[in-house]
């Protein structure tokens, strides 16, 4: 049972003690997926551990949205996509509440003219 819970994380509800608002922070679906994404994107982010990387993703995707952050909901599956042109953060939160990815996009990787184009393509 313990190993089942370890590998299949469920969204945890946490309450902001100051504002009393409640959020779901699912993190990545599995520790392995977190590790894979951390290995791939850590070099472009100010993080040293998987936990720091996951916290950044949680804060960006689930926390209160910065004024400069763009957001859309993918129509075919309800995933939330956020992109902040000022900080160049891009993240996708699945409809089930788990993080699918979080990284700073680069045109050399995705091939679109700008990162904003890439965000709009995902929407």
């Amino acid at each position, binding site marked *: 049972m313990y190993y089942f819970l370890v590998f299949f994380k469920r969204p945890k509800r946490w309450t902001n003690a100051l504002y009393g608002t409640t959020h779901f922070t699912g993190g990545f679906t599995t520790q392995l997926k977190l590790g*894979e994404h951390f290995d791939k994107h850590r070099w472009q982010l100010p993080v040293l551990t998987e936990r720091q990387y996951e916290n950044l993703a949680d804060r960006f995707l689930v926390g209160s949205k910065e004024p400069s952050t763009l957001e859309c909901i993918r129509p075919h599956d309800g995933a939330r996509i956020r992109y902040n042109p000022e900080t160049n953060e891009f993240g996708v939160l699945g409809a089930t509440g788990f993080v*699918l990815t979080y*990284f700073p*996009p680069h045109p050399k990787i995705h091939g679109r003219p700008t990162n904003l184009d890439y965000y709009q393509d995902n929407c």
Partner: protein
Amino acid sequence: MKWPCPVCGYQLSDPPKDFEICPSCGTEFGYTDCTFSHDELRRRWLKSGARWSSRRINPPLGWNPVMQLLSAGHGFTISTRNTNEEVIFVDLDGGNQTVVPVPSDPLTLDSHQYGSGSLMPTIMKNVRFRVV
């Protein structure tokens, strides 16, 4: 159920979409393949040496990128030079496999077992991949 990676042929545990990362070639679906085609990404992976990408998942025992690609139906040409400076070609053309053995090498490449024996590690060390 498994899904073949459209780039390198590795059998994925999850569908190749929604930012899933292939442990074999490192493609992040929805990011890396946003604009570049899977064929182009395959060329790049081959050109860079077709190395196993993931540090979290070990490659299968006896992992062979050549066999992985062949099993997935992706053909290509590889060439290398052995110590006698002769060239070995493994050429795939529409499913027909043409093998040119190196006469001076005691191991020959069987048309159904590319890289059998200890020849493959030598090939992988010196190979320059060229996608046809």
